[in-house]
C-alpha cells in the first residue's frame, strides 16, 4: 500500500510543534508536541504522546487509580485541533481555584429527590436515605436507597415512583421492569435503589458512598426491620 506522506517541518529547532499531513485513509491533520505535556495523556505503546484525529483514549491500566477522585489518570480528550497547551492550563487553573467538581449551590435543594422519597414512605418502604453524590460521581446527582420487604412491595414502590415522576416531572426511568431483589430506576440525575433487606446488607451501598452528604427527609423514617 503506497502511503503518500507529506511532511512539513517548520520551526527553527527542536521543541516546536509541527504539523504533518497524512493521507492513507482520509484527510486528517495531526499536531504533535515535542515533549509530553502531562503525565496522563493518550499514549501509544511506547509511551510517546500523540494527538489523533479520531480521539482514541488509552486508559493506563492499574496505575494511579484513586477511588472517587476526579483528577484521575484519565486522558484528555485529545483530538480536536484547537486543544492546545493553553486550554489545558486554563482548565487546571479553574480546577485548582474552584475544586474538582463545580456545581451550583442551589443543586443542594433537591426537590425531586425528596418527592420520590415521600412517595416511597407512603408505600411503607423502610429506611429511606437520600444521598447527594454529585461530588463523588459525576454521572448522577442523587441516590435514593430504600428497603422493601417483599417483591410485590418493590413492584408497588416502583410503579408509584414511576407514575409520580411521569406526571409531575415528565421523566421516564430507564431501569428494571421486572422486580428484582435489587431494583433500580434511573432518572438521569436521580437514581432510585430498592433493595430487599438481605441485599441491602450484601451490597452495602451506604458504606461505599459514605462520603456523600445525606439529605434531610421531612418525615419519620420507619425502622429498618419490622417486628
Amino acid at each position, binding site marked *: 500500500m503506497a502511503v503518500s506522506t507529506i511532511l512539513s517541518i517548520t520551526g527553527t529547532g527542536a521543541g516546536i510543534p509541527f504539523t504533518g499531513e497524512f493521507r492513507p485513509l482520509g484527510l486528517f491533520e495531526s499536531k504533535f508536541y515535542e515533549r509530553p505535556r502531562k503525565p496522563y495523556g493518550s499514549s501509544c505503546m511506547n509511551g510517546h504522546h500523540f494527538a489523533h484525529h479520531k*480521539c482514541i483514549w488509552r486508559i493506563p491500566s492499574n496505575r494511579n487509580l484513586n477511588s472517587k477522585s476526579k483528577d484521575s489518570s484519565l486522558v484528555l480528550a485529545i483530538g480536536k485541533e484547537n486543544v492546545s497547551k493553553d486550554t489545558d492550563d486554563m482548565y487546571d487553573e479553574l480546577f485548582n481555584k474552584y475544586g474538582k467538581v463545580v456545581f451550583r449551590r442551589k443543586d443542594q435543594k433537591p426537590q425531586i429527590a425528596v418527592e420520590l422519597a415521600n412517595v416511597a414512605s407512603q408505600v411503607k418502604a423502610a429506611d429511606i436515605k437520600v444521598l447527594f453524590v454529585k461530588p463523588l460521581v459525576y454521572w448522577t446527582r442523587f441516590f435514593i436507597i430504600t428497603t422493601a420487604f417483599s417483591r410485590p412491595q418493590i413492584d408497588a414502590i416502583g410503579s408509584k415512583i414511576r407514575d409520580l415522576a411521569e406526571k409531575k416531572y415528565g421523566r421516564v426511568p430507564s431501569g428494571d421492569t421486572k422486580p428484582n431483589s435489587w431494583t433500580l430506576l434511573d432518572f438521569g440525575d436521580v437514581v432510585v435503589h430498592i433493595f430487599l433487606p438481605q441485599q441491602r446488607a450484601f451490597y452495602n451501598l451506604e458504606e461505599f458512598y459514605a462520603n456523600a452528604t445525606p439529605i434531610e427527609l421531612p418525615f419519620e423514617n420507619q425502622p429498618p426491620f419490622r417486628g
Partner: protein
Amino acid sequence: MASGFASKWSKVGRQLLGGVGNNFSGLLSTSHEITCGNPLFQQQRTFIQMRTVLKVVDNSGAKKVMCIQALKGKKGARLGDTIVASVKEAHPNGKVKKGKVVYGVVVRAAMQRGRCDGSEVKFDDNAVVLVDKQGQPIGTRVFGPVPHELRKKKHVKILTLAEHIA
C-alpha cells in the same frame, strides 16, 4: 537512527526525513510518534468471542473466565455486551468456583468502541463483571475503570458499584 525509522516509510517521506533527520536528533521521538499514529503500525483489536480469556474485576471470587458465547452479535461481544463464560481460575474461597458457567458483562475491551460524539474508547485489557441471569452483579465491588457505555446498556448497577468511571 532517524533513517532507520524513515526506512519504514514511503519514498516521499524518506527523502524528506532522511535529509533532515540527522539535523533534528530531538525530533526522533516525534518521528516515532508518527510511526505509532500510522495505521500500518497499530494492532487491530477485535471482538470478544469463544475462547477469549477475560479478567474478572469484581470480588465474586473468580479471577479468569473464558468466553463460551457472546449473547448478542454475530462476530462477537464488545464493550457493554453480555457473554456466557466458564470460570477458569478462581480464588479458593469465593462465591464462584472453577468450572462454573456464568454470565458476565464486558466492562473493558481492547477493541475500540465509538461514542456518539465521534470519539472512541479502548482499554488495555479485556475485563468482565460476573452477573446472574437476571443481571444482578454477583460481587459487591467493581475494580478499575468502567466506561459510560454501561449506562446506555442498562447496567447502571455495575456503575454504582464501580470505583472509577471512565
